[in-house]
């Protein structure tokens, strides 16, 4: 394999001889230090290979052995370069290509982050940009150690981080910390009181003495679990009461919406502006002077990819869409649909910790709006810790 490669590098010729004594020719060549290989006997003489450099030197041996030689084929790099000798553009293009390749390999093209579980990837990428690790950065000016220290100081959740630059690719490996459970560090005693009015459905007292039972009705601020315990010796012990008290609570929500609903609608008319982005820099490649009175903008970044890796160049398309003011008169069914969505969001985001056990609603209609009254029954934990001081 290596020998074949060297022969191709130096160039070689396959030739045919015709004459009576090819053996004499081979012996003369061997005496002159000319190496022949892949020699095959033929009806007229033989076929063999010789290096391009030695081909001229076999002629005296051929004359002495009274044989004729004929070149069959030429192979190797010297013959290829000789073919393109007059074309100056090819070596210049090759040199420029190699120079461009060397130049571009000095920069970071892509960044890959692995190992994130809870920390946002975008947050980490922003911090990397602040530390100089970004697409288009000159890789020999990037201080990966400093970037690592900065990010570890900035993000508490990260326990270990490594920035490895391989070629033009920066690979950021992250290991997040295992979070410690929150420790109760408040030593003062406390009671558990009701945060809302309701009817108790379940009570679980971890520390302290329960003061209410299942089925008890409680008002906001009532004592549920006491932090004052009586011991067997009839003395008082103050503890930090813990526990969960679940109660059915009644909640009323009123939503309203105008009958005449105004909104913006995106029309078909649009204006696109494209920019080429390359290693962090952007260059406009199309112009558009079309403007609208009301506009909404969208931006799409189409980076080129190679084997699933986004390359640091592509086309950014910014589209301006024309908006129109629309107005619609809502029917009762349409209003009901909007109210259902709003009430669902209210249940999820304002009573997410509890469970809805009942719901009654009523739609009222006035001249200009619809009003949606909902009476909920939620089952929630209403326990609220209230510290108290003990004085001798």
């Amino acid at each position, binding site marked *: 394999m290596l020998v074949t490669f060297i022969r191709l590098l130096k160039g070689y010729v396959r030739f045919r001889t015709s004459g009576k004594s090819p053996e004499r020719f081979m*012996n003369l060549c061997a005496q002159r230090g000319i190496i022949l290989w892949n020699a095959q006997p033929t009806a007229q003489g033989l076929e063999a290979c010789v290096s391009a450099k030695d081909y001229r030197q076999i002629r005296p041996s051929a004359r002495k052995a009274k044989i004729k030689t004929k070149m069959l084929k030429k192979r190797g790099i010297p013959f290829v370069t000789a073919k393109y000798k007059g074309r100056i553009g090819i070596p210049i293009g090759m040199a420029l290509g190699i120079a461009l390749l060397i130049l571009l390999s000095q920069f970071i093209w892509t960044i890959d982050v692995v190992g994130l579980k809870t920390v946002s990837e975008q947050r980490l990428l922003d911090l990397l940009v602040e530390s100089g690790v970004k697409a288009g950065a000159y890789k020999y000016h990037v201080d990966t150690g400093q970037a690592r220290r900065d990010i570890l100081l900035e993000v508490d959740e990260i326990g270990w981080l490594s920035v490895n630059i391989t070629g033009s690719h920066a690979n950021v490996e992250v290991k997040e910390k295992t979070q410690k459970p929150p420790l109760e560090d408040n030593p003062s005693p406390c009671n558990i009181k009701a945060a809302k009015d309701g009817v108790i459905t379940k009570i679980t007292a971890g520390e302290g003495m329960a003061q209410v039972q299942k089925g008890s009705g409680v008002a906001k601020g009532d004592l549920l679990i006491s932090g004052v315990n009586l011991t067997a010796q009839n003395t008082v012990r103050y503890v930090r009461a813990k526990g969960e008290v679940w109660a059915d609570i009644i909640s009323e929500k009123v939503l309203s919406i105008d009958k005449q609903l105004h909104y913006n609608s995106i029309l078909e008319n649009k204006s696109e502006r494209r920019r080429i982005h390359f290693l962090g820099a952007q260059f406009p490649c199309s112009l558009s002077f079309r403007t609208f009175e009301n506009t909404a903008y969208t931006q799409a970044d189409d980076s080129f990819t190679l084997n699933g890796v986004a390359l640091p160049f592509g086309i950014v398309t910014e589209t301006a869409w024309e908006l129109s003011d629309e107005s619609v008169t809502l029917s009762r069914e349409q209003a009901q649909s909007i109210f259902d969505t709003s009430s669902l969001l209210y249940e999820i985001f304002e009573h997410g910790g509890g469970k809805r056990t009942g719901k009654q609603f009523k739609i009222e209609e006035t001249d200009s709006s619809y009003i949606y009254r909902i009476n909920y029954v939620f089952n929630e934990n209403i326990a609220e810790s209230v510290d108290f001081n003990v004085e001798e």
Partner: protein
Amino acid sequence: MAKEKARIPRMEMGFAPLIDMVGNRQVTVEGSTGILLYESENIKVSAGRMILSFGGRGLRLRCISGSCVEISGFISKIEFLT
């Protein structure tokens, strides 16, 4: 006895050729002084005081240099002619 024969120095062998064989498919002769006959069934190599004759089929010279010859093919017979 065999060990004693193996220890005979090369000078005492009278510059005899060194023959390496890989099965019956390849032979390398070091110390050759020329090719006397080159056919696909028979190749005769001069090696100092003796002539080596390789018989077989599809014989060819893979490489020829000043003192080394490499023969490949299906070798069925080797003769030492003086």
